[in-house]
């Protein structure tokens, strides 16, 4: 059993009476890859940003989030500046807007490196070039001299990954790292991310809405709905035998080759209705409005029931088998 790196307890992210993340608990062990899935607006990105202490103005996190024994929630901005990049770092989505359009790639990478003051046997330039190779960037010397708009989306995303891994952080939060990348090269970009995470022995929190990505790359999964964790546990058991109605529906709406082969006459499976907006989350179970098995019991928020190694937040868990 490896040590816990990040321990999140009773953690919420809110602005006034509005909450994007509501009382979540989870752990990330050392060397572990955790996938967080959910629809847009489920609070995944806000959760990621809040761990970095980069919430938009007016938002704050409460509860507890300990990274290697240090509490992030009450940490001062000065201390946060010290750990960002070094202990915890982030890969952002939309690589074009996440890179400064007016600075050369090399300069931007340099900053991500310099601040870290990582002791290195090789020279600074050598280190950058080694990293560029591990990112599988063609012609690294030339790419360093370019501006973000001169690179392809995939190349830019790799640069962002490079910035995130530059200072050997212990935890990397990747917020939909492949949304802005052509689907053909999404896999390449993810492979680069995963190989770098493994190389550093870091832990990864991979935020995505792509279940296939999580089942391919992660060991643990968290399914979020309207700011709450509805189901979490080992990827194999959650994906193979989902317990929560929402997880079932999410996996059920995944398009596979079967659907395509069966012809267009068959409609794609969807979850009826919409996830409630964060201003209007109903009391009790938030999924009850779209859930086929909802009953009067669902008016009360279900606790996180333990089923084997996983937690499920539902009153209607039919079978208790793993």
């Amino acid at each position, binding site marked *: 059993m490896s040590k816990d790196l990040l321990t999140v307890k009773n953690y919420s992210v809110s602005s006034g009476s509005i909450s994007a993340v509501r009382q979540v608990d989870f752990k990330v062990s050392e060397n572990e890859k955790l996938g967080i899935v959910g629809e847009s607006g489920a609070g995944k990105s806000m959760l990621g940003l809040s761990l970095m202490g980069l919430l938009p103005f007016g938002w704050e996190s409460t509860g507890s989030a300990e990274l290697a024994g240090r509490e992030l929630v009450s940490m001062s901005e*000065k201390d946060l500046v010290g750990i*960002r990049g070094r202990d915890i770092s982030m890969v952002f989505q939309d690589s074009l807007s996440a890179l*400064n359009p007016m600075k050369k790639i090399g300069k931007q990478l340099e900053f991500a490196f310099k601040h870290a003051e990582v002791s290195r046997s090789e020279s600074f330039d050598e280190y950058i070039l080694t990293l560029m190779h591990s990112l599988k960037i063609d012609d690294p010397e030339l790419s360093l001299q370019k501006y973000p708009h001169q690179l392809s989306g995939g190349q830019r995303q790799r640069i962002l990954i490079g910035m995130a891994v530059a200072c050997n952080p212990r935890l990397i939060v990747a917020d939909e790292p492949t949304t802005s990348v052509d689907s053909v090269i999404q896999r390449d970009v993810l492979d680069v991310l995963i190989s770098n995470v493994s190389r550093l022995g870091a832990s990864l929190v991979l935020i995505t809405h792509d279940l296939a990505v999580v089942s391919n790359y992660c060991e643990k999964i968290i399914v979020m709905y309207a700011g709450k964790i509805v189901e979490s546990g080992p990827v194999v058991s959650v994906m193979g035998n989902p317990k929560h109605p929402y997880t079932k529906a999410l996996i059920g709406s995944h398009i596979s080759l079967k659907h395509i082969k069966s012809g267009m006459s068959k409609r794609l499976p969807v979850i009826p209705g919409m996830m409630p907006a964060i201003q209007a989350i109903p009391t009790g179970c938030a999924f009850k409005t779209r859930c086929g098995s909802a009953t009067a019991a669902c008016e009360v928020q279900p606790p996180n029931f333990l089923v084997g190694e996983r937690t499920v937040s539902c009153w209607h868990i039919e079978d208790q088998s793993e």
Partner: protein
Amino acid sequence: MSIFLFRRFLAFLVAFFLTSILIFVLVRVIGGNPATTLLGEYSTPEAVREIEIQLGLDRPIVIQYFEWIINLCSGDLGTSFRSGLEVNYLLASAIPVSISLSIGALIVAVLIGFPLGIISAVKSYRGSGTALDFFSQIGVAMPIFWSGALLSMFFGVRLGLLPTGGWVGWSENYAQSLRHLVLPSIALGIGIGSVITRFVRTAVVEVMRQDYVRTGRAFGMSEYRALFSIGLRNASLPIVTVLGNIVSHLVGGTVITETLFSMPGLSRMILDNVISRDILVVQNLVMIIVVYILIVNFIVDISYFSLDKRLRVK
């Protein structure tokens, strides 16, 4: 870079000739025969004719235009037929006044605009930012003739600290020149400074909410470092564009300010000559302002190069 400069220079020339034609035509369309104006209402046709020949108004209009342009380019701005003095001589005393006023006003405006704009951007979500925003709105809305009159009433008349108007040449007594410059510069600079405040604020707020600022902070950049190394740099392009426009429009402000503080500057000179229908002088003076504005815009274009290195990339 050289291709860019060459193209900008061509654009400069085209703009110069197009505006010169426009001014030449407009001044004549406005009407009023300068010869009649000069001689008075009861002049004889013979006398008018004689003056017209003397001023060259009898020749074909195209020839008149080219003669004017050639003289203008060779630095001969002609003679004011009213005072009989050379326009170059009149300009030599007027231009330093206008330039001093413009520079003074710009210094006041930049000293107000940049710090307040940046503070107001940083505090944009807080009360102090809203308060600054409110005061800059008032600053923009205040007309020069009103704020200028208030200033000269308070500091000039009530306190007697500074002269309420007039001008002393730099070569005569520069301390006196400075004293004469303070109130007009502030009067003109407050409005411009408020405009700059608002633009700096908007540009910086806009840049600071960009994702790449967050990226910088995610890798250990402090908020203030992000503001100075990313925020101001990336906000500089829109700010320089606006500064260029402001410097161009300053000419309009100097007309009112020079009149209000009775300063013998270029704008006052134009106004006087428009009233006395000295059309040759007017068209020359307006052309000088056109060249000034074109040069300012040219400098703005060039400064993009030093601010945005992307432009140097092929």
